[in-house]
């Protein structure tokens, strides 16, 4: 066993200092596409999920395929940074960029409501995850948070098996109808205050899987979502950001408050 003690010391500290310090991997992250200006009418084949409207682009539908960025660089670009203002939203409409002005108030109201609910959770948060029809990649990225690089324990965030002990519900997947019952039961088993995070574009809107016999096209049809995190899949930094926004450790907008 002593061999593992020595191995544990091999690389020194590999844990990110974020959010106390910026992290270059998080800052260089290629997030969902954004519209540089209102796009008007474009070829519908430009987006496989129909995220583009004359208004702009709905990042909640963006699966990061990059087709619009490649074919119309005059209109679209990647958003940069996994932890910035574009990382997660408190209202579904706020994922539409350029942001329609009327959502500012809605987001502010949602933020105030969330803050009031989660005031007690700031320093110790227990998280439960439910897969409602994911492709499996979101689970990898959530698991990464438990690894040495992200190590969410240092931020007072812990995973729990029992919904009775959970404050936050991370939901992945396009909302498989077979999981609607188990997902609802898990949510109902959580004590108040509780926060639901839709992790990934599939969970936000269904992504490529539209509403069908098999999926509800996003998890909001089954549980009320508080924080919307696009990405296909989102990076571990994105998930971390959404968690910290959910419990009020970070203001939505990416400015560290610690």
């Amino acid at each position, binding site marked *: 066993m002593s061999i593992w*003690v020595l*191995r544990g010391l091999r690389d020194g500290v590999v844990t990110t200092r974020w959010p106390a310090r910026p992290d270059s991997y998080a800052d260089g992250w290629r997030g969902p596409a954004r519209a540089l200006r209102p796009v008007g009418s474009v070829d519908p084949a430009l987006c496989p999920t129909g995220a583009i409207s004359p208004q702009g682009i709905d990042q909640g539908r963006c699966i990061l395929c990059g087709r619009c960025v490649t074919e119309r660089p005059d209109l679209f670009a990647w958003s940069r940074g996994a932890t910035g203002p574009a990382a997660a939203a408190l209202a579904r409409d706020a994922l539409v960029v350029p942001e329609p002005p009327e959502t500012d108030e809605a987001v502010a109201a949602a933020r105030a409501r969330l803050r009031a609910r989660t005031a007690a959770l700031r320093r110790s948060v227990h998280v439960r995850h439910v897969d409602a029809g994911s*492709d499996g990649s979101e*689970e*990898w*990225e959530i698991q990464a948070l438990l690894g*040495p690089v992200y190590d969410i324990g240092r931020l007072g965030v812990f995973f729990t098996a029992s919904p009775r002990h959970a404050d936050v519900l991370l939901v992945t997947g396009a909302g498989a109808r077979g999981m609607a019952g188990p997902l609802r*039961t898990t949510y109902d088993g959580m004590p108040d205050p509780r926060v639901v995070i839709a992790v990934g574009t599939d969970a936000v809107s269904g992504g490529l899987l539209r509403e069908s016999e098999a999926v509800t096209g996003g998890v909001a049809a089954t549980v009320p979502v508080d924080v919307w995190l696009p990405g*296909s899949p989102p990076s571990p930094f994105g998930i971390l950001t959404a968690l910290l926004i959910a419990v009020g450790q970070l203001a939505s907008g990416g400015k560290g408050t610690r």
Partner: protein
Amino acid sequence: MTMTQPGVTALWDELCSRVKAGDRFAGLSGSQPEGGPLVLSAHLATAGGIDTLEAPLPPSAASYPALTPRLGAAFWYERVIHDRFGVVPDGHPRLAPLIRPGPPEDHALPRHVTGYGVFTIPHGPVRSGVMESIEYLVETPGEAIPHLNMRVFYKHRGVADRFAGMTPADAVLLAERAEGIASVAHALAFCHAVEQIAGCQPPPAAGLVRVLHAELERIANHLDVAVRLADAAGLAVATARFALHKERVQRLVSALCGSRFGRGVVVPGGVAALPLLPPAQIRAEAGKLRQAISADAGALMGTSSFLDRLRGTGPLTPARARQHGALGPVGKAAGYADDARLVRPYDGYWSLAVPPAAAHSAGDALARLRVRWEEVDQAFGLIRQAAEDLAERAGDRARLPCEPVRGRAAGWAEAPQGEVLYDVEVADGRIARCQPRSASFHNLVLMHEVFTGDILTDFPFIEASFGLSVAGVSL
């Protein structure tokens, strides 16, 4: 190559005799062209490619003679056909819903074993830890596991049906999300089918980039298995070490293409772009990773308390592996190696030297882990070769136009879990039908059979050692 048989019985006769002669049963699916009869398509893996044998059912037939009594490997395939089309395979041993959840009143716990003190532990679909949704029904008198039942329908997403009507460029994005942890392999299998239909040969540089990503995906998946095994054994440092290596591999992938899962790289006709890092740097980074991983893997394989948990755990006999045509590391560990990269090469694997799998026969969790470490080592070797070759092809194009109009073909690729198979039909430039078959689907059914002599605490080891993804099962 597609061959049509006059009727279902003739199809099964032909199929069974070819399996007996050494071909591998690689899949069975149904399709129903509008207004037409249901057509059953069986796939056979041969030394040079995938053969498809077909037979239509008589019009408005409500049943057909089941294949499963003659060829056990068809067990789950026929249940899927029943789920999707409502046609009954006569003589099928157990026709419960597999991928489509029936009404909740059908969800009562099935009981197969009875006896003093035998009870069922329902484990899932919401499981402890961060896991995909699946329900295991463990029938046990307390410690031994005489029977295990699996319900995978909870996270059925209707992926196979969703393909119809998509353009190939959109459909490859869906293929990447059929089984997210094997995105590259699924995209490859899909693109190989589409490229065959279009008669398009991707440029050599694209073939090498495809190999780079496929092998990095293999390494990440095998490291994930190592993380889960070390975690199950309570080796905290080993868990953290392999998680660190996996993160570094994913970061290398994202440095190459922007996605941590290699998504958006493989497109019909080649790759979307050449890697963002120069080949020499890829080689150097991979070399560093190889050293770090092999040192920790060596330490893990020298930790006797860990090996004791794997040795003899979840054994699959070589006879069963061959009979079922077990794929990937599960098959290799039991002496049945049918690696598509070697036997039915594609892309860069034509020119690179893929070393043959080492001989194993134990078939237990330990042998599966040994196979994975060998594959990781081979993968680094292939990455080095591919990066070297890529450096000489700096001027190559990344992709060629690939516009399939009409036709049908099978495409395959060796995912970390084993062979992925796509049966794609294109009409008027759009996908008319696409039937993906992941290695996870083919292999997961074998979990029923590997609990001989094992007890409840072996469960996490056996599950992790299979290294499958539920997403790929319940498409």
